[in-house]
C-alpha cells in the first residue's frame, strides 16, 4: 500500500486538487479534514452510510426483548398483584421502550465502529498530525509510475507539502 499525501491549508485548494486528481484517475483518493465539510463529502461520491441499518435492527430487537422478558417471567411466576392481569402489556411497554433505546443506541455505535473501521490499533499511512488541527490532507493511493503526475497536480493546486508514503 503506497501512495502520495498532500497537505493543504485552504479548503477550496483541496477541493480543486481533488477534482484534478479525479480527472487524472491516479487511484483511490481519501481526504483528511479537521471538521466535516460538505464540499469534500460531495466530491467523493460514496454511497450513503449504512449505520442506519444497525440502528433499525438493534431497535427492533430491543423492543421485542423488552416485551418478551416481563411476559415470560410473569407466566413463570403467576402472582397477582393489585388485582391486575398477570402478564399486562401496558406497563411492559415502558420496559420495551427503554430496551429499544438502549439496544438501538448500542447497535448504532457498533455500526459506527464497524463501518468506520475503528478502533484502530495503529495509524494508517499517509496520516499527518496537522489534519486534526487545521490542515486538509489528500491521500492518493497510486502505483509508482503515476506518482510523478500526482505530486505535480497536488503541488500545482497549492499543496504546502507533498510526500510519498509506503
Amino acid at each position, binding site marked *: 500500500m503506497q501512495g502520495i499525501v498532500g497537505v493543504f491549508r485552504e479548503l477550496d485548494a483541496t477541493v480543486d486538487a481533488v477534482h484534478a486528481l479525479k480527472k487524472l484517475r491516479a487511484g483511490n483518493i481519501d481526504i483528511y479534514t479537521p471538521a466535516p465539510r460538505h464540499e469534500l463529502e460531495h466530491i467523493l461520491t460514496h454511497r450513503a452510510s449504512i449505520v442506519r441499518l444497525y440502528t433499525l435492527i438493534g431497535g427492533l430487537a430491543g423492543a421485542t426483548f423488552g416485551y418478551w422478558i416481563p411476559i415470560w417471567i410473569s*407466566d413463570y*411466576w*403467576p*402472582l*397477582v*398483584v*393489585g*388485582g*391486575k*392481569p*398477570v402478564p399486562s402489556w401496558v406497563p411492559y411497554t415502558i420496559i420495551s421502550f427503554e430496551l429499544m433505546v438502549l439496544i438501538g443506541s448500542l447497535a448504532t455505535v457498533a455500526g459506527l465502529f464497524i463501518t468506520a473501521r475503528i478502533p484502530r490499533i495503529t495509524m494508517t499511512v499517509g496520516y499527518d498530525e496537522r489534519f486534526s488541527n487545521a490542515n486538509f490532507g489528500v491521500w492518493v493511493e497510486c502505483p509508482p509510475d503515476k506518482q510523478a503526475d500526482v505530486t505535480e497536480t497536488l503541488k500545482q493546486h497549492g499543496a504546502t507539502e507533498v510526500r510519498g508514503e509506503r
Partner: protein
Amino acid sequence: MSENPTPSGVRRREFLKILGAGGVATAAIGCSSDRVEKLIPYLNHPDETVPMVSNYYASTCRECSAGCGVLLETRDGRTFKLEGNPDHPLNRGALCARGQAAVQGLYNPDRYRGPMMRNASGRLVPTTWDAALKLLAQKLGAVQGSGRAGSALFLNRHESGSFPAFLDEWLAAYGMPAHLSVDPLADNAVIAANRQSYGVSWPWLAFSAARLIVSIGADFLDAWGANVPQQLEFADARARLADAPRFVYVGPRRSLTGCNADQWIACRPGSELAIANALSGRGSLDDAATASDVPVATLQALKAELTGTRPPLVLSGVAAGDAMELALVVNELNKQLGAVGTTVLPDRAITSFDGIATDADVNAAIDAMRAGQVPLLMIRGANPVFTTPRYVAVADALKKVPFKVSFSSYPDETAELCDLVLPDHHAIESWGDAQPMANVISVQQPGMAPVYDTRQTADVLITLAKANPGIASKFAAPNYMRWLIDRYPGGSTAFTLALEKGVGTGAVAASPAPRRPAVTPKAATPIGQTAGDMYLVVYPSAALGDGSGANKPWLQEFPDPVTKICWQSWVEINQQTAVKLGVDTGDILRVETAQGAVEAPAYVFMGIHKDTVAIPFGLGHTAYGRYAAGIGVNPGDVLPAGFDAKSGAFAWTATKATVTKTGAYTPIVTTEGSARQHGRGIAQALTVQELADLAAGREKEKVEAMPGMPNTEYLPGLRSPMAADAQGVVSSDIKHKEQGMYSPDHWSGMAKRRWAMTVDLARCTGCQACVTACYAENNIPTVAAPYQEVHTAFLHGVAGGNILKGREMNWIRLERYWEGGEDGGDFEARFVPMLCQHCGNAPCEPVCPVYATYHSPDGLNVQVYNRCVGTRYCSNNCPYKVRYFNWFGYGEPARPQYAWPERLSWQLNPDVTVRGKGVMEKCSFCVQRIREAEHRAKAEGRAVRPDEFTTSCAQACPSRAITFGDAADNDWTVAKLALDQRGYHVFQEQLNTFPAVVYLKKVNHPAPAASAGA
C-alpha cells in the same frame, strides 16, 4: 461456630427467629431451635408434650384482683402467650391488655435473678436461699422470742382464693396477726356500700338487661371492678342495637367508659353526691345544678328519663370523701327503680374483692411502722412506697422497721428498701387458686419451670414452718401444691379435673383469723374547701393500673385509649381553660397542692370539666426496672391522705391544685394524627332512628363520606375479584386473571377461600386489648423505650422519641375520632380498629419492585419479609397506612434498639419470623394460625371447619367485636356478618380497593327528645 451451615450470604439477612437468647438458654430448656447449630434433645421426654406443638395449661390471671381464667400457651418448655379461658364464667375467653402482658412480667429483664440480702455496706447483693432462709428464720425466732410477734406485719397484694387463708394460718402459727390484703385499685367505698346494701361485695352487673345506664364516675370499662366481665356484658348490651340501653355518663372527666356513653354530663368533682341526691329525689335539682355546674334542664331530663325507663342501672364510682354515702344513695336508687334483681344481681356476686383491706387500714399500719411499733415487716407483691401518697412518707416509716422482708419478684421501690428479698415465682410459675365467684374455684397452675432462681412464697413459708419445731406439725403438706390439693373440695381427683378446665366448683378454705380491729380513718376535707384554682382528678391509668404494669414495654407503649399518649405522663386540661391560660398541648404545667407539686405536659382535651385538671396514676417510678424508672411523674406525690370516713377508702379526688404554665415545652408522645375524620367516613355511625329506617328500607342510609360515592352493593361480594370470580359472583371480565392457583378450578382450590374480618363498631369499646394481643402473637417490637433512642447531639433522647416520629409498630391500632364538640358542648367518641385491610385490589402490591408483597389466592395480602428490600413504596401507596417499617435492628441483639433484652426474647412466638432491619411488615391476618389449622385439618384428613380458629385480636377482644373467617364460605360466621346492613368498607368508594375487612356501623342512642326529633 465453624459448623454453621448457613453461608454468609444467608447469614447477612439476620432477621431470624430469635428463639431464646442464644444457644445456652435454648439448651437449658431443650429441643431444637434454628439459631443453635446443635440439636439438643431432652434427657427424658415429658409425656404430654410434642416438640413445636403448643400445650395449653388452664390457669388464673393474677395481674389484677378479678381473677380471670387464662390458658397458658406453652411450647417446648416456654409459656409465650396468655389467652382467655373460654370455659371460665368470669371472662369467657376474653382477656384484657394487662392480663396478656403478664408474660412480659414473667420474662422481665429486670426481675430478681435470686434472693438478695442487704450487706454490711447497706446494698442489696445476691445471696443463696439457704442463707436467706436461715436469716429469716432467725429473725422470726427473735420476734417470737421478744414477744412482739403480735405487732408484726404482713402486707400481701390482694388475691382471692386459698392463699390468704394459708397465709393467715401461717401467721397465726407464729402468733402474728392476720395479713393486710392490699389492692390500691379496689373501690373500698363501693365494696363497703354493697356489703351494707346487698351483703355481697360486688354484685353482678347485668348491663344487657338494662334499658338505661347511668354511671356516676364508675369507670367499669377502665379499672373499676372486674373490667373484663363488665366489658363483655356491656358489649353484649350494645350489640342489641335498637334495644340496647342508652348510656349516660356523669363525671368531671370523660374516661374510656365515658367515651362509650351516648351522653356525657360534665360535673364538678365532689358534686356527684348532690346529683345522686337530686336524681333520687333526696335533694333539690337546683342545689345540684349550682354545686355541679350542670344546667338544671339536663338534670331534669335525666331524672325524668331515669324514672321513666325500666329497668335502669345506676352506678357510682367516685373516689372522694363522700364515696360510700354516694354509693349507698345509688344502691337505694337502684332498689327504688327495680334494678336490683334485674340489672344488679347480688346472687351472682363477684367475690374476687372479698377480704381487701381498706386503704385506711394500710395507712394505720404505716403509722404503726412510723411509730416504731412494727418489729418485722413482710411484703409480697404490694408496693406501698409507690402507691401511697408521697407525703405519707412510707419510706421513712419503713426505716423505723428493724427488719423488712420483701417477696417481690421485681426491684420495685419497696423491695429496694427491704433488708431481705426472697423473690416469688411469677403467677405463671406458681400454684394457686382463686374464688372469682361464689361456688367457682379458678385454679392456677404453672405453665413452665421457673425462669430464674425464685421460689413461690407459700413454699418458702412452709419450708420455714417445717424448720421450726414448734409449728412444723401444723404444716404437714410438703409444699403449697399438696396443701391446696388437701384443702380442695373433692380432693385430688376433683383438683385434677379442675386443672383441665381451669375452673372447679366449691369454696376455697376461708381464713381462720379474725379481722383486724377497724380503724377510724382521717376524714378527707371536702374538696371545695381545699386551696387551689382547679380541681385535681387522679385516676388509674388504663394500661398500668396501680403502676404494676409500668415495667412491661407492651403496656408502656400501649397508647392510652382516650388520649393516645404513651411513655409519658400528662395533665388533661379543658379546651376553653387552656385558651384562657394560653396553654397549648405540650406546654409543661406545674400542678401544685399543699402537699407538693408535679410538672407534666398539658394535653388539651374536650372531655374534661373546665374547672378540672386530671393526671393518670401509674407512672413516675423511681425504681422498678429499665422500662419504668424515670418515666413520667407520680401524681400521688401531691395528694393528701384523706379518706372516706365511712368506708376507709382513700380519697383520690380530694384536693384542688394551683395550675401554672412553666413555659417549658415537651412534645406529647402520642400516636394520634388528626382527631377528626374530616368527613371521610372511616368510623361511621347510625342513630337508632336511622337504623330503624334502614331496616324498614324507608331511607337509603346516610353515609358520611365524600361527594360522588356510589352505594355499597358490592358488600355481598366483598370477596376480591379473584375470589368472587371463583364463586361466580362476578361475571368474568377478569378471566385473564384466572391463572394457575388463582383459578377456582385449580387443583389447590385456594381461590375458593377469602379470609376476611368484620369489626362491629357497636361492640367495640376501644379498650385496645387487641393491640396487645397482636404484639404478643406476632413478635412486634416495642420501639420507644429510653434505651432504644439514638443518642446523638442531633436526635432527641427522650423516651418515646421513635413514637414522636410515628414509628410505632402496632399492626392493629385503635383510631379514636371526635365528632362534634367544637363549640365546647357534648361530643361523641368513635373508636375504629385499623389494620391491614387485605384488599382485593391492594394498592401496595403492584408498586413493589420485587414481589415482596402480593395477593395470595386465598385472599391474603402477603408480605414476604425475606424478599423485601425496603423501598417502602408499598407504605406510600397504602391509603390505610397500616404498613410498618423496621427503622432499626429491633430484632438484632447486637443493636442498641434490640426490643427483647435477655429473657424477654423467650416470649417470641416460634411460628412467626422476627423481622430484621430495613424490612416492611404488617398485619398478616395471623397467617401462621391459618397454616396451623390447615396442617391440623390435613393431618386429620378433613377440611378446615367453620370458625375452627381465629386471629389473635379476635380471640382476645373482650367486646367480641372482631370476627375472622372465610367470607367465601357461608358456614363461617364472618360470611353472615359481612352482609349485615350496617356494614361498610373504608375508602372503598374512593379507591375501589375491595378490602377484606367489613366494619359494622356504630349505633348511637340520642337523648329521647333528640331521637324523637330525628
